[in-house]
């Protein structure tokens, strides 16, 4: 080793032999630069990448806002230019109740959420001149998707600017990590707006579609806000079929209706079967069906709470059937795999009725989900 040293430091015919400054610059300066400024460099790279994604989000946000304004002005025929009112709506917020003292919180959440929905609906109705319920609910849904896109953009911009101002690599890296998922969700919201505009069924509606199929030739009655019920019969069992009222984009008030039927109308079922779309894990197939126990209903939890309460009080078994789909499938036009699960699910419902109930029993069959584009 020692014998080699003179060769390296004094290589004779080497171009560096009489220019030690060049030697230093080429071999050592990059190391020093990277040690001192490596993180800065990486920060710039990350900032740049997030900046591009943020731009994309901004484009989506602006496009969705424009589409909402167009839909209100052209399809819903607003009495005046809706731009200002829609811009105000994009900033609309909801404050959920304090949860540090959780006793009785469900009533408060329900109150706030109902208030929010009613406010949205009444504001939309005030703006537009048409009375078609499908178009009105589509307008509400479009406004909600636009608000969500606006919110996503603002949050991402907040962290981007925070990271840029503080040049904090760690803030930026966290944002960079979740960025692909955020972009995917924003993309799904954009596609959801397309489905809403044309009132096409979305993946989330599969539960309602199953209940709707069972209701086809039955008499329907409105049983609660945006909720319909039909009575039917299968192998000696009385079926009470419940879903949100379509083809407008409603989710109904399933929890309230079940509570009302059991507590106020004294209709005590021997079983409740619920059908809903459920989030699949990566790797699971879209449209796969799974059976289980419990109240299959999403949302903020008010409906599930009510159904669980009343089912527990009267010891009613809850059977759940879910159809697997991704969050993107759930808010975009229904895929064939999901739609074609309908008949298989009906087969499962019949099997549950045969196996778990007996002749003369009363059974609630509840199809959960947004009924946009799905009648009954």
């Amino acid at each position: 080793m020692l014998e080699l040293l003179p060769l390296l430091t004094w290589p004779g015919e080497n171009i560096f032999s009489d220019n030690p400054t060049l030697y230093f610059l080429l071999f050592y300066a990059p190391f020093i630069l990277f040690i001192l400024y490596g993180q800065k460099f990486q920060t710039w790279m990350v900032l740049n990448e997030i900046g591009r994604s943020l731009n994309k989000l901004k484009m989506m946000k602006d496009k969705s806002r424009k589409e909402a304004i167009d839909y209100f002005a052209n399809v819903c025929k607003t009495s005046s230019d809706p731009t200002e009112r829609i811009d105000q709506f994009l900033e609309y917020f909801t404050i959920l109740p304090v949860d540090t003292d959780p006793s009785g919180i469900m009533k408060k959440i329900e109150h706030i959420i109902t208030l929010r929905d009613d406010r949205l609906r009444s504001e939309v109705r005030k703006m537009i001149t048409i009375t078609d319920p499908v178009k009105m609910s589509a307008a509400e849904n479009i406004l909600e998707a636009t608000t969500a896109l606006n919110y996503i953009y603002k949050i991402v911009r907040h962290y981007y600017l925070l990271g840029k101002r503080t040049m904090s690599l760690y803030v930026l890296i966290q944002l960079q990590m979740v960025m692909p998922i955020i972009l995917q969700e924003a993309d799904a919201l954009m596609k959801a707006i397309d489905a809403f505009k044309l009132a096409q069924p979305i993946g989330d509606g599969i539960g309602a579609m199953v209940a709707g199929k069972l209701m086809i030739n039955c008499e329907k009655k409105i049983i609660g806000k945006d909720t319909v019920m039909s009575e039917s019969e299968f192998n000696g069992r009385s079926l009470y079929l419940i879903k949100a009222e379509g083809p407008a984009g409603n989710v109904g008030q399933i929890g309230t209706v079940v509570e009302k039927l059991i507590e106020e109308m004294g209709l005590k079922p021997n079983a409740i079967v619920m059908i809903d779309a459920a989030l699949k894990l990566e790797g699971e197939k879209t449209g796969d069906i799974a059976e289980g126990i419990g109240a299959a209903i999403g949302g903020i939890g008010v409906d599930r709470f009510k159904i669980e309460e009343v089912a527990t009080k009267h010891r009613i078994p809850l059977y759940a059937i879910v159809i697997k789909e991704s969050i993107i499938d759930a808010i975009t036009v229904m895929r064939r795999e999901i739609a074609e699960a309908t008949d298989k699910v009906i087969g499962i419902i019949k099997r549950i009725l045969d196996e778990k109930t007996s002749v003369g029993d009363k059974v609630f069959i509840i199809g959960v989900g947004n009924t946009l584009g799905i009648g009954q």
Partner: protein
Amino acid sequence: MKRSYNKEVKAPVYTIEECTQCGLKSKRFFQDGDYVYRRSGKCGKCNGTMIITYIYTEKPITE
């Protein structure tokens, strides 16, 4: 990530109708006003009622 959202081709949406009597099925492009379980006219074969049973898209929108 590389694909821009507005460059993608929109997958077509189909409406499937089925006759309630003879089970004849027909598939066409979605039209404005279609919704699932709408009675959509008479069957060409047996004059029974046609009903829309599915509205779906076939190409996976997301991978």
